[in-house]
C-alpha cells in the first residue's frame, strides 16, 4: 500500500525540474534518477507493506558529491532519506514524497585493512559479509552478523545498530565500530571516534549508532575486527515444551557461560526451516535451542561439557553436537533461513522485534499464543534467546482486505506486552515508520521531546529522514497513548486531538 508518512511539514523551496538541473551538474547521469519507472525499485525497503515513490534518487560516488548534494538540500529544504542496501525491516529507508533518496550503494570500497590494529576502514555501502570475507585470509572477521548480512550495508548497520546471532558475546554494531566520518545536514564533516579506543568529549559514536539516519550521513566507518576463534562447536537441543527451552537458556547463563550464540526456534519455525533447507532439525520437537561455544580447544571442551550437563538437567529430550564444520553450518543455515522459509508458508509475514528480560519468556510466549488465537493469525517464533530478543513472525495475506491492518494491530499489542514485561519495542530492527505509535507507549512526552531536541541539535531544519524514529508529540496524543503523570498533561501548550 502507498503510505503517506508525516514528513514533519518539510516544504521544498525549489521545483523538481530545477533540482534535477542542479544535481545533474554534481553527479553523472546514471547516478540521478527522476523518472517514475526508475524510481520504482526504491519505493520501499525490507518492510514492503509501506511504499512511497520518492521525488528522485541520487547515487553519489564520492564523499564530495554527497557533501554538495546535502548542501543543496539544506539550501532548498529538501528532505534526505539515506539508503544503504534497503534491507531495513522497519521502514527506515522508506522514501518521502517530496524528498530525495540518497543511495550510498556505490560507495562500496574497503579502503584499508589494518592487520596490526585489527581494524578495517570501509565505505558505508560495503556489505556486512564482504568485510569478513576480505579479512578472512588474515584469520580475522567482523563480528556483528545480522541475518541479512549477505546484503545489508555497514552504513545501514550503524544507522540501526544492527545485532545478529552472536551479539550476546561479541556485541552489537556500537561495540564493534571505532570511528565514523559523518556529514551533517549543513555539509560539515565530523570525525567521530578515532583509531584509539576512546575519544575526548561526549560519546557521539554511541549516539550515532541506531540513530536511523536522522542525525547525519555516515560516509566512512572504521570497524573493529576480531581474531577467528580456533574452535567453534554448536549444540542442538530439542525440547517438548517451549517454556522448558526458555528456562534452560537462563540456566546456561546463570551457570557462568556466555555462549557465542544462543537461539531458540519454536515448532512452526523448526518445520518451516527444515522444509526449506533440510538442516536436520527434529520436526517433532516443540522447540530447539542452538548453542554455539568458541575459543581454544581446551576452553570449548570445558564449556561443551558444562552446557551439555545443563541442557540434560534442564529437560532437553535430545542433545546433538554438530559432528563437523559442515553440519555446524547446516544447523545455522536453518536458523538464518527462518525468515525466507516462513515466506514460503504464507503470502506475507510481518516480523516483530521486541526484547524482554529472558525470565519473562514464558509469559510473552503465552501472550503471543493468546493474541494469535484472538486475531486468528498464525505466528512463528524465532528468538535470539541469549539476549532476550524475540522475532515473532505474524503470517497474513495482504490480498485479504483489512488483514494487514489487523496484523499491525496485533503486532502493536505484542510490543506493548514487551514493554509491560520490562522490555522494549525494538531490539535491533529500529523504529522506522513502523513503531512510531509504540514509541508513545515506551516513552513519556518529556523523553520524546528530549530525543527531538537532540535531533534538532544535529539537524536544525529537520531534513534528515524526518518522520522516522521519533514520533512528534501530537501523533502520540492522537494515538491515545500519551503518558499522563500525576494527572498533569505535559506540554499543555501543544494542540491535541
Amino acid at each position, binding site marked *: 500500500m502507498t503510505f503517506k508518512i508525516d514528513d514533519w511539514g518539510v516544504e521544498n523551496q525549489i521545483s523538481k525540474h530545477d533540482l534535477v538541473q542542479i544535481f545533474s551538474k554534481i553527479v553523472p547521469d546514471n547516478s540521478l534518477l527522476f523518472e517514475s519507472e526508475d524510481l520504482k525499485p526504491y519505493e520501499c525497503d525490507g518492510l514492503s507493506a509501506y511504499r512511497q515513490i520518492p521525488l528522485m534518487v541520487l547515487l553519489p560516488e564520492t564523499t564530495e558529491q554527497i557533501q554538495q548534494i546535502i548542501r543543496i538540500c539544506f539550501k532548498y529544504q529538501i528532505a534526505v532519506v539515506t539508503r544503504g542496501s534497503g534491507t531495513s525491516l522497519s521502514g527506515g529507508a522508506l522514501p518521502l514524497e517530496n524528498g530525495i533518496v540518497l543511495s550510498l550503494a556505490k560507495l562500496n570500497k574497503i579502503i584499508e585493512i589494518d592487520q596490526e590494529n585489527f581494524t578495517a576502514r570501509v565505505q558505508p555501502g560495503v556489505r556486512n559479509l564482504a568485510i569478513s570475507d576480505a579479512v578472512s585470509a588474515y584469520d580475522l572477521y567482523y563480528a556483528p552478523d545480522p541475518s541479512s548480512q549477505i546484503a545489508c550495508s555497514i552504513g545501514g548497520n550503524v544507522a540501526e545498530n544492527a545485532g545478529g546471532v552472536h551479539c550476546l558475546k561479541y556485541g552489537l554494531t556500537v561495540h564493534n565500530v571505532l570511528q565514523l566520518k559523518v556529514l551533517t545536514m549543513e555539509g560539515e*564533516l565530523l570525525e567521530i571516534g578515532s583509531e*584509539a579506543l*576512546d575519544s*575526548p568529549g*561526549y560519546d557521539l559514536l554511541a549516539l550515532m549508532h541506531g540513530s536511523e539516519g536522522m542525525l547525519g550521513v555516515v560516509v566512512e566507518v572504521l570497524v573493529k575486527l576480531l581474531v577467528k576463534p580456533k574452535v567453534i562447536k554448536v549444540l542442538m537441543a530439542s525440547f517438548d515444551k517451549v517454556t522448558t527451552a526458555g528456562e534452560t537458556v537462563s540456566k546456561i547463563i546463570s551457570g557462568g557461560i556466555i555462549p557465542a550464540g544462543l537461539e531458540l526456534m519454536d515448532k512452526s519455525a523448526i518445520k518451516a526451516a527444515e522444509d526449506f533447507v533440510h538442516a536436520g532439525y527434529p520436526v517433532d520437537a516443540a522447540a530447539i535451542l542452538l548453542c554455539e561455544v568458541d575459543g581454544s580447544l*581446551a576452553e570449548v571442551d570445558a564449556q561443551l561439557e558444562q552446557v551439555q550437563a545443563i541442557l540434560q538437567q534442564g529437560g532437553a529430550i535430545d542433545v546433538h553436537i554438530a559432528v563437523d564444520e559442515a553440519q555446524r553450518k547446516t544447523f545455522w543455515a536453518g536458523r538464518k533461513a527462518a525468515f525466507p522459509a516462513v515466506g514460503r508458508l504464507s503470502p506475507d509475514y510481518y516480523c516483530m522485534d521486541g526484547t524482554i528480560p*529472558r*525470565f519473562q519468556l514464558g509469559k510473552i510466549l503465552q501472550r503471543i499464543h493468546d493474541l494469535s488465537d484472538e486475531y486468528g493469525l498464525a505466528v512463528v517464533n524465532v528468538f535470539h534467546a541469549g539476549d532476550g530478543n524475540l522475532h515473532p513472525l505474524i503470517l497474513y495475506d495482504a490480498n485479504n482486505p483489512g488483514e494487514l491492518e489487523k496484523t499491525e494491530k496485533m503486532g502493536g499489542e505484542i510490543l506493548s506486552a514487551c514493554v509491560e514485561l520490562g*522490555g522494549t519495542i525494538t531490539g535491533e530492527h529500529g523504529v522506522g515508520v513502523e513503531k512510531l505509535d509504540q514509541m508513545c507507549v515506551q516513552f513519556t512526552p518529556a523523553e520524546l521531546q528530549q530525543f527531538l531536541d537532540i535531533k534538532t541539535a544535529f539537524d536544525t531544519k529537520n531534513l534528515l529522514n524526518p518522520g522516522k524514529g521519533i514520533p512528534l508529540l501530537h501523533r502520540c496524543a492522537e494515538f491515545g497513548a500519551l503518558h499522563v503523570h500525576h494527572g498533569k498533561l505535559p506540554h499543555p501548550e501543544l494542540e491535541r486531538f
Partner: protein
Amino acid sequence: MASQTDTNNQDQTDQLVSQVRMAYENRQALSIQGNGSKLFLIHPVSGSLLSTASHQGVINYFPSELTITVRSGTLLSELKKILAEKGQMLPFEPPGYSEKATIGGTIAAGLSGSSRPYTGSARDFVLGCKVINGRGELLHFGGEVMKNVAGYDLSRLITGSYGGLGVILEVSLKLLPLAPKQQSFSFSIPSNQFSHHVRSLQMAGHPITGACYLDGQAYIRLAGSEQGVAFSYQEISENQSPLNEVNNSFWSELNEQQLSFFDHSQPLWRLSLPAFPAKGTENFEQNMLAEDKQLIDWGGALRWLYSNQSADKIRQYAKLQGGHAQLFRGNSMDSALLKSTPKQQPLTPVMMKIHQQIKSAMDPHAILNHGCIYPDL
C-alpha cells in the same frame, strides 16, 4: 518537596528532581557530585552542590539476566561485593580511586580498566539510565535488556559526560560471570616488541584480559575456564620462558594507581593511542625526556606518562598517532598552568559546535556542571 523526615529513605529522586527544577527556574548553576573521588578529572565547577551520595541502593538485580539496576550513590565497592557474591562482575573493571567512589561517578567519568580492549568499555555495558536533564525533567532512556534501539542511545551518550548532560540517578548495567580461573604472569621483553607480542598471543587465540608493560616486563592476564587457562599458559610458557608468576592483585593495583610507578611528582598524562601507530609517525620513546616515565596498558593502546613536557607537545604527538592525551593529574604542575590547561584534548571547532548544541539540547540554561570538561561546554 518530598518529606525530609524520612532520613532512612535511600531514594532521593524527588528531592534531586526538585533541586534541579528549582535551579533551572532560577538559572542557578549546580555542581554535581557523588563522593568527589574523581573531581580531579574535571575543571572546578562553580555552583551550589547537588549531591547524589545518599541516593543509594540496588533496585533490581537479576543474576540470570546478567543485569543490575542501581541508584547512582551506591558505592562501587559495595556493588562489586554484591556481584561477586553471585559470581559476577562489572566487565569494564572500572577504577574507583577511593573506597568511597560511587557508581554514578564511575559512569559519569566513563573510565575503564585493563580489561577494556578485550571485554569492552564502561559505555559498552551501560544498558539504560534514569537522569534529570537541565530542565529538571526525570527521564528514562534505554532499559534492562541487552538489545534496545528504541530512541537515540542517550544512556551511552551520558556515560563519560561528567554530569554535563544530566544528573545520573539510576543506571542499568550488563554484567558478566567472573571467570572460573585467572592467571597472571610476566616476562622480560624490549618495549618495542611488546605490542607485537600481545598481538601474536591474541592471534594464537589465548584468552587475554590484561596486557601491560612496565620496567622491561610484559604483564599478561589470562581468564577463562580452568582447562582453557591451563592450556594457554602451558602453550605460552613453551614459547616464552621464563614466565614469572604475578599475583592477580597486580591488576587492581594498576587500575587504582597504587603501583609504585604512580608515585612520581610530575604531571600524569593519559594517552589513548592505536596500539600500532600509522607508519612514519615518530616514536614517542625518542622524544621522551630523561625523567619521563611511562607504563603501557591495553596491549599498547594506553600510555600513562609522567612528564614535564608541554601539553601542546604531548597532544601534538597523540594526535599525530591517531589518538588523544588527557591531563590526568596535575601533580607538581604550576597552578596557573594547571588552570589554563584543558584536561581533555581540545576539540576541532566543528566538533565543539555540535557538542555545544547537544549540551544545550539537554541543559538549555547550562546549569549542570558547566565548564567541567571544556570552558565553553
